[in-house]
């Protein structure tokens, strides 16, 4: 995959978010219970926000983007891959979503290393940071649920 222009990258990132929206929406359709449906739909909504953000990206926005240190709890990083299965329990749904964010972040981090232009690097760094925010949000939810249970 080659990213030559700003537009290439943005188009790719938007498509990745669209895929995530499809994934969560499909999962929500397959769920029998309102509650699990709701969890997946909430994740789809989060991805929609990202998609909208990326669709409206322009170089100026990226130039002004505020970088900060997003803590990484690394809860998903040591876990094995997990696949969607209908009826999966709540913590497994969180694990699945965390893993997806971990992969997305890692992908953009790899891209930062691969591309040469400063602007392109910055764009990928921004995309990576956005995924890190999602990852942190999910891992915090997960960590809260697990802490209570004694993990």
């Amino acid at each position, binding site marked *: 995959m080659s990213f030559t222009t700003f537009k290439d990258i943005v188009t790719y990132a938007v498509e990745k978010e669209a895929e995530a929206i499809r994934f969560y929406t499909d999962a929500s359709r397959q769920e*029998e*219970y*309102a*509650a*699990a449906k*709701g*969890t997946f739909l909430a994740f789809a909504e989060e991805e929609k926000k990202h998609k909208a953000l990326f669709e409206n990206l322009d170089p100026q926005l990226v130039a002004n983007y505020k970088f900060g240190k997003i*803590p*990484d*709890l*690394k809860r998903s990083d*040591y*876990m*094995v891959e*997990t696949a969607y299965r209908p*009826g999966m*329990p*709540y*913590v497994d749904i969180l*694990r699945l979503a965390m893993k997806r964010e971990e992969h997305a972040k890692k992908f953009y981090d790899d891209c930062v290393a691969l591309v040469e232009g400063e602007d392109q690097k910055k764009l990928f760094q921004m995309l990576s940071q956005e995924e890190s925010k999602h990852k942190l949000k999910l891992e*915090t939810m997960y*960590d809260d*649920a*697990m*802490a*209570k*249970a*004694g*993990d």
Partner: protein
Amino acid sequence: MSEEKQTKEAPKPKPKRPKIPRQPMPEQDAHARAKNFESVTLGYTMEQAVVEATRCIQCKKPYCIGGCPVAIDIPGFIQLVKDKEFLKAAQLVKRTNLLPAVCGRVCPQEEQCEAVCVLGKKQDPVAIGRLERFVADYEAEHGEIPLPEFPPKTGKKVAVVGAGPGGLTVAGDLIQQGHDVTIFEALHKAGGVLVYGIPEFRLPKAIVEREVEYLQRLGVELKLNHVIGKIRTIDQLMEEDGFDAVFIGSGAGLPWFMDIPGENLNGVFSANEYLTRNNLMKAFDFPSYDTPIKKFKNVAVIGGGNVAMDSVRTALRLGADNAYIVYRRGREEMPARQEEIEHAEHEGVKFKNLTAPVRILGNDEGWVTALECLEMELGEPDASGRRRPIPVKGSEFILEMDAVVIAIGTSANPLIAQTTPDLKLNRKGYIEVENETTCRTSKKGVFAGGDIVTGSATVILAMGAGRNAANAIQNYLQTGEWWSPNGTPEN
């Protein structure tokens, strides 16, 4: 003259009531008990109980009652202990708590009644839990529980799914209202976590058996080895078997794993399996009982709750040379009862706090050989003010291990929900009820309470839910009134 003046001015010191210290609980020696399954704590003697009871100042506004989820008349029963009316004290406690011998042993009193005891502001609170246990044990030894007067039979039938503390409470309350009550229990013994989870050294099984026998004497029918959702569904119970109401108290017994590499190796157990093999199938007494459990030298138990403490202390008693708690957070965050953590420490359990397992290693035969861990440190406080553990880069280390027991939490077994389509669940997969008081589910005539509604909680909360549900079922059987669930209530 001046001396005289001085004596006049100095106020006479008030005679101080000597402070009686909180009476310590007699215990088996830590080294000896780490090798046997006998009770760790031995219970107060009569003298100790009376001395402890005299510490209660009989507050006019007793906060302790409010601190108890089932509102036991605590000052009342303690006064009776002070007066040496032990049987009466036991009967008073039993008015609101069906299982005082259990709760006296396992309730987290330090977070409930004893946490709000006025004495606790300046000194140690009254040992309410120990006194509760004392009166219940005294009654078990000296008194026969009298059978209550029975009201005439109502002809109504109630099914209780699950014989844990929640289900047992519902059954006990409703049989005394004249209904026919049948408990369906999946396992071959009644008691739920009280028999399969909490080990003998903390809660002797004879205590639970005695209470179950009492319910049977009252006329409760107990159907063991009956998995609802397999043998019969909730719909069949109601439509074909003639039950007018059903209470679901099936607990939260489905274990979570860590999803790290190596979890399918031999020697990896869920805490549930490990404890059940030992408690319910008496693996510690193999070959007298036919469930074996391998003797492991080095056992790591993952987690910091009561379940983890029970598992690690069981590992010691089964002969482990080294039994570890591996916990990703700091000691102060452990949800286990303080007393249980201290008992584990005294018995020689090794604590690896701020340590997270990342991989289980095995040999060619597929058996566990080691646990790879990471050191953790506390990160910056987040928006909630919480400092969460994060891995220390490059801190990986290996602990030699031949068994790993995972005690990081459980959720509801989905079987009943899967076979009862119109039963609404919340986001976390627990049964949704109208509220804690009515315990009414989305399905007419079906009530639920205990861990299946709240997620893993405590014995006393499950019993409190059982009592509420029994009242609500009684009301439903009399009036037929129901509610109309609309929308998904917030979890």
